[in-house]
């Protein structure tokens, strides 16, 4: 492995000393502005916004949800989460588009001579086998208990994606693709994204308000409680895990399956 030293200076490029002078001037200005901004901040640990106090007081009674952050994410500010979900959805779509196979690239494993991949050691494989189960279980727990304890669909979804990454770490890309086939992953992402909207439309039909929590709220602290909150959390979990697995698969596919045309430098 070669380390990246300072690249040779091109004509017209600033010297290191000049760049440092420029940084010192800019850095001093930024530091001054930030210190000025610190003046207006509340004291350390001082928490007095009314909105936060109000939500803390009413969320448990109103929505039978003991995790107030999740209640805000999926109910009081559910529409924001809908937009955020589609930001991730759009980002993953764009990535799939960017990392598609180009006409001059060929599909196939790299030539043996180019492969510098070491075989996975038995210790790593064993650790991965031991980790996959707990990771999946943790993902399910975090997703389904989002309305009771910290966590929720986003956190659980990303943990589920890392479980598949552990599969890759302990085996190889074909095995990872067998465990999580592209069609399944893409379907999960789409179902999650559409599910959120459909639950929102359910609120529109039942109460004439989009994303209104229209299901019975149940008893606070029970697994089935909080009305639509756990369902929205679950759909976000599906969408997020699908999106992240799709991102990782696309990157891995670029690395392992798609080769530039012979004779051209990448």
């Amino acid at each position, binding site marked *: *492995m070669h380390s*990246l030293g300072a690249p040779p200076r091109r004509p017209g490029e600033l010297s290191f000393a000049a760049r440092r002078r420029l940084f010192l001037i800019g850095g001093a200005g930024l530091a001054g502005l930030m210190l000025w901004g610190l003046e207006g901040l509340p004291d350390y640990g001082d928490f007095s916004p009314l909105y936060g106090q109000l939500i803390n007081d009413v969320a448990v009674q109103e929505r039978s949800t003991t995790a107030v952050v999740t209640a805000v994410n999926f109910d009081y500010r559910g529409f924001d989460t809908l937009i955020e979900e589609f930001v991730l959805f759009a980002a993953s779509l764009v990535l799939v588009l960017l990392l598609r196979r180009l006409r001059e690239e060929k599909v196939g494993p790299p030539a043996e001579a180019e492969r510098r991949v070491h075989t996975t050691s038995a210790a790593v494989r064993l650790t991965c086998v031991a980790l996959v189960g707990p990771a999946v279980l943790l993902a399910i727990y975090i997703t389904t208990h989002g309305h009771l304890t910290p966590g929720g669909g986003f*956190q659980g979804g*990303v943990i589920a994606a*890392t479980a598949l990454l552990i599969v890759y770490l302990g085996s190889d890309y074909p095995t990872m693709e067998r465990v999580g086939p592209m069609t399944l992953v893409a379907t999960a992402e789409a179902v999650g994204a559409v599910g959120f909207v459909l639950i929102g439309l359910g609120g529109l039909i039942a109460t004439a308000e989009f994303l209104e929590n229209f299901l019975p709220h149940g008893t606070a602290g029970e697994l089935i409680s909080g009305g639509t909150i756990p369902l929205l959390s679950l759909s976000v979990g599906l969408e997020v895990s699908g999106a992240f697995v799709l991102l*990782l698969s696309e990157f891995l596919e670029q690395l392992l399956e798609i080769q530039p045309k012979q004779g051209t430098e990448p």
Partner: protein
Amino acid sequence: MTAVQAVALVLVASGAWATVMARDPVRQAVVVSLYGLTLGILFFSFQAPDVALSNIVIGAVAMPTMILLAIAKTRK
């Protein structure tokens, strides 16, 4: 400020410094993963477990993985 919060702040500051000081991108990807973990501890110590959970997975696993894969692709 509790002792745990102070320790977490120091950890984050040293993690950020270490990330900048590691000049090789591959090393940097590994160090930034540790930095993501310290940020998770910081969020947790400031009573934001939801954010801590996200950051441990995104900052310590997903982002370094993508950096590593991008480096591997461009160096091939």
